[in-house]
């Protein structure tokens, strides 16, 4: 799967949790999930589970520690596909 396709699906998954619609509209690999998109950190677990379901992968808790930006999430998912 191409990185651009993964990015597109990641953004789609993040959309319901992102409170900053302006940042969502101009989302890039460098966009911070918590700081820019304003995803509630407590809901990050739901985002991770959505990633698992959508891409049919398993993400360990420790893997999430390296995910700060949309690009981090994309790279993690690509590595697990």
């Amino acid at each position, binding site marked *: 799967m191409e990185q651009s396709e993964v990015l597109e699906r990641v953004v789609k998954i993040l959309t319901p949790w992102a409170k900053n619609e302006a940042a969502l509209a101009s989302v890039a690999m460098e966009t911070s999930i*918590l*700081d820019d998109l304003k995803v*509630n*950190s*407590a809901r*990050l*677990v*739901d985002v*991770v*589970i959505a990633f*698992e379901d959508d891409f049919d992968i*398993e*993400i*360990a*808790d*420790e893997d*999430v*520690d*390296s*995910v*700060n930006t949309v690009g981090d999430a994309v790279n993690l998912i690509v590595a697990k596909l």
Partner: protein
Amino acid sequence: MGLHTVQRAVVTLLAPLWLPLAAGYLRFGARYRVADLQELRCEFDRIRSETRGPLLLCSNHLTLIDSFLILWALRSPWKLITDWDSFAWNTPERTNFAGSPLHGVLTYLAKCIPITRGGRREDTGSVLKRVAYLLSRRELALIFPEGGRSRSGRVEPENAAWGVGRIVGSVPNCRVLCIYLRGDAQETWGNFPEHGDTLRLKLACIEPKSDLRGARRSRDLARQITAQLVQMETEYFDGRQ
């Protein structure tokens, strides 16, 4: 884990200097009173003696000094000094105490491991691992599953962080002592309980279990803890009516 070892040594050495003053201020300065104090302390002692494995303290969160109020209520200052391990490590929100170097020193002395809610995931993960490590060494730790003070004044399961589930899931046979704390005059969240308030604490020990894996498991474990806190809150308000 050198950080923990050094902090533990320093705070153990200095506790006799500041702990009686702090406890004295709560009782005679702020005039806080703990309802059913002796029964509460006996119950805590019983739970600790019955718990062979790791014990994580989880509480609702309404004021800046909840962690200290809980530890002050559960053990007398004398017992805390002579049994410093019963003074739990706790994880306050870093931004609440970042105002001055003095705050930094005080939190260090109070066995705090500051955490930044919504901070970099590596930092959060590091704190969670440190707490799990301490628990695995049979040291007590206190964490607020909601992550911050409840803005509604009630336990907010939807804001419950999954970090507490990660900790419990990574420490075999970890039991959780759920603590519901509220002052009689405390209608909602704030910095401190009202002067002269009577504090009420309820304890319930659970051992969360989950057959799930990964993030689902952490979320499931965290939900069991917040569900227990919600139940305790319901019982608290039912008892007030």
